[in-house]
């Protein structure tokens, strides 16, 4: 399966990013091939609707499980429609969370915060 994590930097030792929609990168782990790749988050710069765009980006990667510290309502709606499982990260580094996840130690994320639309309007 493919797992995604919002991260601060595009290397294996990276920390998990506090924000899902505005994380600079997403780490993608393919558990079958054991390959780790990084994609740039083009939603990070959005004025508004970053959660929607980020979730679309992640869903388009055919991700099955997302590990994240938090998730907004809009992103959650998209991810749920995409039938993706969302888990709450418990550790500061991406690696630690991947290990915890594979051992079945991460809990599902159930609380989604309301959006904070950073629209620039006029």
């Amino acid at each position, binding site marked *: 399966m493919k797992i995604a994590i919002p991260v601060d930097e595009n290397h294996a030792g990276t920390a998990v990013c506090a924000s899902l929609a505005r994380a600079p990168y997403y780490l993608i782990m393919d558990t079958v091939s054991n390959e780790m790749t990084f994609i740039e988050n083009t939603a990070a710069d959005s004025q508004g*609707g970053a959660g929607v765009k980020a979730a679309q980006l992640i869903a388009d990667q055919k991700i099955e499980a997302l590990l994240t510290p938090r998730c907004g309502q809009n992103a959650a709606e998209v991810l749920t429609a995409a039938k993706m499982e969302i888990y709450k990260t418990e550790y500061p580094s991406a690696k630690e969370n991947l290990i915890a996840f594979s051992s079945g130690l991460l809990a599902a994320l159930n609380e989604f915060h309301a959006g904070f639309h950073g629209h620039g309007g006029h």
Partner: protein
Amino acid sequence: MKIAVLSGKGGTGKTMVSVNLATAAQRAVYLDCDVEEPNGHLYFKPENLTEEPVNVKIPKIDHEACTGCRQCVDFCKFNALAYINKKIMVFDDVCHSCGGCAIVCPEGAISEWDKTIGMLLSGTSESVEVHSGFLKPGQASGVPIIKEVLAKAPGEGTLTLIDCPPGSACVVMESIKDADYCLMVAEPTLFGAHNLAMVYELVRLFGKPHGVVLNKCLEGAPNPSETFCIEQGIPVLGEIPFDLELGAINSNGEILVRAQAYFAALFSELLLKVKEAAARETAPDSQR
């Protein structure tokens, strides 16, 4: 005659001034454009209330006609659309109601419905006609509501007071766009003067005739806002003293002009000065 009352900073007395000026007049219309935190109605406690919802257009998808080309998703600058599991999802709270998705859809699969983002409350309080805009908490933009509130402005003859939101962002611009005169309220603090400078820039950018009323003035104390006005040559139309009794009455949601003759006189005089200044500066051929 439309007079916008504004200040760069919150809590300087915009609402106190606009509510009391409206009350001091023979007849006036009060428009509360601070739709995030409207307060005028708390003072007026208007009667004969009518409520109108304020709506914006949100896209509705005909999923049968949709072919999944994603042109709408790619077009939307606000990221209000997503395409997941062969279905378009719409995110109301992020949508700016521009109508673009419906235009670009090659299949004509997008129509629109009306979503309520707030309301307009109208009523009367003795000689004042009161209109207040309320934005629902969590909604993105109050601009459509401000537009509805301003649409309630009567014709030329009646005095209209526009209570603006604080600051100088787009919601303030929207509020002063059609004003004939801008009355800036300033308090005698460093913060007050700093923010007065900002809103002064806005008022000048719009080419609006303007003046200042200094609020919470302390006898004998230095007034950085007054200094700013003198330096910039901005007419000061009046000074409202810092007064514990005024503060007590106002903080209880009472209208000063109706509470005490002293305040009625104070605001009648200020109203006269404002009307004179506005009449003087708004020549018949002046540009907006």
